[in-house]
């Protein structure tokens, strides 16, 4: 089976674009990714489109109506916050299997402001039987870590300090403002221990990638900026003891991380940088351990010692992460791949991780009573 390469990849600057449409926002990133490798929509043999809010409304086809209807197969993918990464992986599978040589993956989302989480149909149990908000769910996960290992409010807050600082170097980030520790800790409490500055930002955004087979990459002469996909893995949540009471994102992450490292034939110590799913500050802490960036129980020390900041041993979320760059659900997975690719190409400017050769992306999607989707990719400078 052929190795698969990213030859074109880009994202729009995340923001709020209520006057635009989902297909319109998607089209912007698609054209940017095509321009990044000098190809045309006429070269694309299949499209995979990740989106949550309009999952049932054929976002991919509507995007092609804006940039060129060539009759190619379109697969619309919805997998909560892992939708973009899932679309990318489906594109990868198709090239890997030899069905196509050039495919396009797009992730897009247009979001409102405010709390995410299911109220669902029927009588609301919110407040009466705990909370169904996303912050509450990820706060439970943080408190579980604190219970086991003594992780502190200060350590959770430092994740947010780091990612907001990183975002000051990223022109495509929604916010680009430093937030000192005292400001993060004194911000409005949303759900203990996550303050408002420790919650990801709801934004509109899109990102897209052109994936090609090795043969076509060489034919097209696109080696110089190509990025090799060393592993593309997915998982769902394996059974967890408390899963009906508190959704579990760690089990799925550990399953996908194990297979990703095996497939790539390397370990976490060989990574130069990581973009992981920091939907809340508490989530980043638990994923340090789930991804093997440190041993179990060491995540608090990792953030306190600055090992995951730009210039540290293993920089995490140098883009600013979901906390500051923003989290347009369907676009997030491909935006993470854009960030890693940009570093591997040596094109990340002020936030460049020097000499970056191998990077990992991680996203999880899910919610109360939903289950989990996890996707992990390992990328290497070609």
């Amino acid at each position, binding site marked *: 089976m052929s190795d698969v390469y990213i030859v074109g990849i880009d994202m729009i600057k995340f923001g709020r674009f209520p006057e635009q449409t989902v297909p319109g926002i998607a089209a912007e990133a698609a054209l940017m990714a095509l321009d990044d490798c000098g190809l045309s929509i006429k070269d694309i043999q299949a499209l995979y489109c990740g989106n949550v809010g309009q999952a049932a409304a054929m976002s991919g086809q509507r995007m092609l109506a804006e940039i060129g209807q060539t009759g190619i197969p379109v697969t619309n993918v919805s997998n909560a916050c892992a939708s973009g990464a899932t679309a990318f992986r489906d594109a990868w599978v198709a090239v890997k299997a030899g069905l196509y040589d050039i495919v396009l993956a797009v992730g897009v989302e247009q979001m409102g402001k405010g709390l995410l989480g299911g109220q669902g149909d029927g009588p*609301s149990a919110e407040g009466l039987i705990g909370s169904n908000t996303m912050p509450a769910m990820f706060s*439970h996960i943080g408190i579980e870590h604190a219970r086991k290992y003594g992780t502190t409010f200060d350590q959770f807050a430092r994740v947010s300090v780091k990612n907001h600082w990183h975002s000051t170097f990223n022109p495509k980030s929604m916010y680009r403002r430093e937030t000192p520790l005292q400001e993060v800790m004194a911000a409005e409490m949303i759900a203990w221990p996550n303050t408002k500055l420790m919650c990801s930002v709801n934004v509109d955004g899109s990102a897209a990638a052109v994936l090609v087979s090795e043969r076509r990459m060489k034919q097209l002469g696109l080696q110089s900026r190509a990025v090799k996909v060393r592993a593309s893995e997915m998982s769902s949540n394996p059974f967890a003891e408390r899963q009906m009471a508190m959704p579990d994102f760690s089990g799925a992450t550990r399953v996908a991380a194990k297979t990703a490292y095996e497939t790539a034939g390397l370990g976490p110590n060989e990574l130069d940088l990581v973009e992981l799913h920091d939907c809340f500050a508490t989530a980043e802490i638990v994923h340090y351990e789930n991804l093997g960036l440190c041993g179990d129980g060491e995540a608090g020390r990792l953030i306190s010692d600055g090992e995951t900041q730009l210039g540290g041993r293993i920089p995490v979320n140098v883009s600013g992460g979901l906390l500051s760059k923003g989290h347009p659900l369907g676009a997030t997975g491909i935006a993470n791949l854009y960030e890693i690719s940009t570093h591997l190409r040596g094109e990340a400017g002020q936030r460049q991780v020097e000499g970056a050769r191998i990077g990992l992306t991680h996203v999880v999607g899910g919610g109360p009573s939903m289950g989990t989707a996890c996707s992990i990719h390992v990328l290497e400078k070609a």
Partner: protein
Amino acid sequence: MTPTLKSFLKRDEKGEPYLGGSKCTACGHLYVGERSVCANCTARGQIEPHRLAETGKIFVYTIVHRSFPGVATPFIDVIVDLDDGAHIKGTLLGVEPYPEQIPYDLPVRVVFNERAPVNMPDTPHLTYAFEPLVPA
């Protein structure tokens, strides 16, 4: 009769409310609510109804300060390990909403009450909450 907020809220033959669960006789896992196949061991047709315990201990908590529109805050959202081994989420009453007031493993009991959901303010529903086994 007052409607129930969740389908696993049941009433026995005397009309007493309880938390309905199910037990897999193959692996022993306890579930909140009814089901026919075990998600843990995949056994089929080996699930029997189980009346869940009404005491347990707090595993983790959060204090919710921002909720959906109209919901009174703050409130304490706890994950409780029931004494029979089941796990369930609920609101903790009778404790001040400060982290230092909520020790891990605090023994709690289930209390049943009737409350109106935020989106149906005129229709009380049977629901449940937790309170400390030993009042503060």
